[in-house]
């Protein structure tokens, strides 16, 4: 993997050659191939999809569906299991409402009851969740008066799978877990939770936002019934995301966002729905965004996620070693082997915001705050951390620049 040649694919780095961009977990940079694909849509064949009976309309529809097929292939799914959304947050919210709108017997053939979710049903998730995953479930639990249980951490700050065994019961209908933490990079054993969930008759939701494009992700290997992610953390544009849903489930589910393009028959009183996944994409979708995401997937496939993960693993090892040598440093990160390339840390006597600001002046992009994972921060025992995240275009010299920036901050605060 030649990083110098990879960097040349990203116009951002031509514009900012000195910049150590260590904030890909917030959003990644965009390769020229993605920009070109979107530009081509806007300049050569812009038209709405599934409607225009002219050449450009057909071209747009074909490229949009090709993007769906690329994304499906990338996560081991079938195209009809892929719904385009505006991002992971939209996917997560929409999924919860889709489940609420669906019939229980359609999702759990053995069970009775008109709606999917009943008061006595329980939801199990983890303290590691991003707010995009946690809060829609919290709100669902509040609406239904149901219990929301949280899988805690062990003493070594791993997910407590033993606790999960007893928290997930026959009453559990949904188990939700983040695949790769946006705080510590920790790659969780989602398969283990999925197996427990399925043994108890529950559905498994996976938040793969920090994982797709960073580590190999396959919905079948993970045992995911539902899985979602954003395009912009995997070299795609902003405003596009994905919701994967297992075909046999999706076929029986009802939409939660209504409008054009999703109907079969419309009468004065009610409407019936077209086939999935179109049933869940009401209105004109983000066509350019989907095409851009398709191009991002194809770009990532030329390098390979295994290769990318091997690279970010090496950077994580290097970062853990170099940061670990700084006095007053506290690191919050999974060991490199099970880390998706994210390292959080605090430095004695310097607030993460001050640290990130001084790093910014030194041309090092960090993230500081609670990273929209308040429960995880509480479990880790810190109000906020600074975070460095690595991707395919980062090098050890970016980490050297980070170390120098931290030393500079220490010098300013030691005066």
């Amino acid at each position: 993997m030649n990083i110098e040649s990879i960097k040349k694919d990203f116009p951002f780095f031509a514009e900012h050659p000195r910049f150590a961009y260590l904030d890909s977990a917030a959003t990644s940079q965009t390769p020229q191939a993605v920009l070109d694909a979107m530009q081509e849509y806007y300049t050569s064949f812009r038209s709405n999809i599934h409607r225009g009976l002219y050449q450009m309309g057909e071209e747009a529809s074909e490229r949009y569906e090709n993007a769906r097929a690329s994304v499906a292939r990338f996560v081991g799914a079938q195209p009809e299991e892929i719904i385009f959304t505006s991002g992971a947050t939209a996917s997560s919210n929409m999924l919860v409402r889709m489940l609420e709108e669906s019939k229980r017997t359609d999702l759990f053939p053995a069970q009775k009851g008109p709606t999917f979710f009943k008061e006595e049903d329980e939801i199990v998730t983890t303290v590691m969740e991003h707010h995009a995953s946690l809060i829609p479930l919290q709100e669902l639990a509040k609406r239904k008066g149901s219990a929301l249980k949280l899988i805690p951490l062990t003493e070594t700050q791993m997910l407590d799978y033993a606790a999960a065994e007893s928290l997930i019961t026959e009453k559990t209908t949904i188990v939700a877990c983040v695949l790769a933490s946006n705080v510590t990079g920790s790659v969780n054993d989602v398969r283990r939770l999925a197996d427990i969930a399925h043994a108890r008759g529950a559905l498994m939701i996976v938040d793969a936002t920090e994982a797709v494009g960073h580590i190999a992700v396959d919905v079948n290997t993970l045992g995911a019934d539902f899985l979602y992610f954003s395009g912009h953390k995997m070299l795609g544009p902003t405003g596009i995301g994905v919701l994967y849903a297992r075909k046999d489930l999706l076929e029986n589910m009802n939409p939660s966002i209504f409008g054009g393009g999703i109907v079969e028959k419309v009468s004065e009183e009610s409407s019936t729905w077209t086939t999935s996944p179109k049933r869940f994409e009401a209105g004109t979708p983000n066509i350019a965004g989907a095409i851009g995401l398709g191009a991002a997937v194809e770009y990532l496939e030329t390098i390979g996620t295994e290769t990318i993960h091997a690279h970010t693993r090496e950077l994580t090892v290097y970062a853990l070693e170099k940061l670990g040598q700084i006095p007053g440093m506290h690191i919050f990160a999974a060991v490199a082997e099970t880390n998706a390339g994210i390292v959080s840390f605090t430095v004695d006597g310097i607030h993460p915001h001050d640290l990130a600001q001084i790093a910014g002046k030194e041309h090092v992009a960090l993230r500081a705050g609670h990273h929209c994972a308040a429960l995880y921060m509480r479990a880790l025992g810190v109000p906020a951390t600074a975070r460095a995240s690595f991707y395919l275009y980062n090098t050890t010299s970016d980490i050297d620049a980070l170390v120098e920036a931290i030393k500079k901050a220490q010098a300013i605060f030691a005066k």
Partner: protein
Amino acid sequence: MDEELYKENILDHYRNPHNKDALDVYDVRGGGVNQTCGDELEFFVKFDEEGKVAQATFLGSGCAISQAGASMLTDKVKGMTLSELKLLAPGDIYSMLGIHISPGRANCALLSYRALSDGLKHHE
């Protein structure tokens, strides 16, 4: 430059904050949360018989900007009347700090001001 942001007086206030304490007896008490990092801050004010601020204190932890800002604000409000407190605006806080505050740090700079404003809102 960071040297400009982290000027010596800012760092002095951060290391040795003025009036960092709770007041058992107070007239105004308010709180604020910095949504980007979760830092919390409480601000207390006690008036004298003439209706001027006799004591102003704060409690909480945070970054150099929010802590120095709170420390400086406790000094600044001393001797002010209730109506003068109510006239304080974000611009006064930026001038008081005397450094350039980027949009990303506005929540840090204004944390103590928001805590004070919260207290004034609940003060009869």
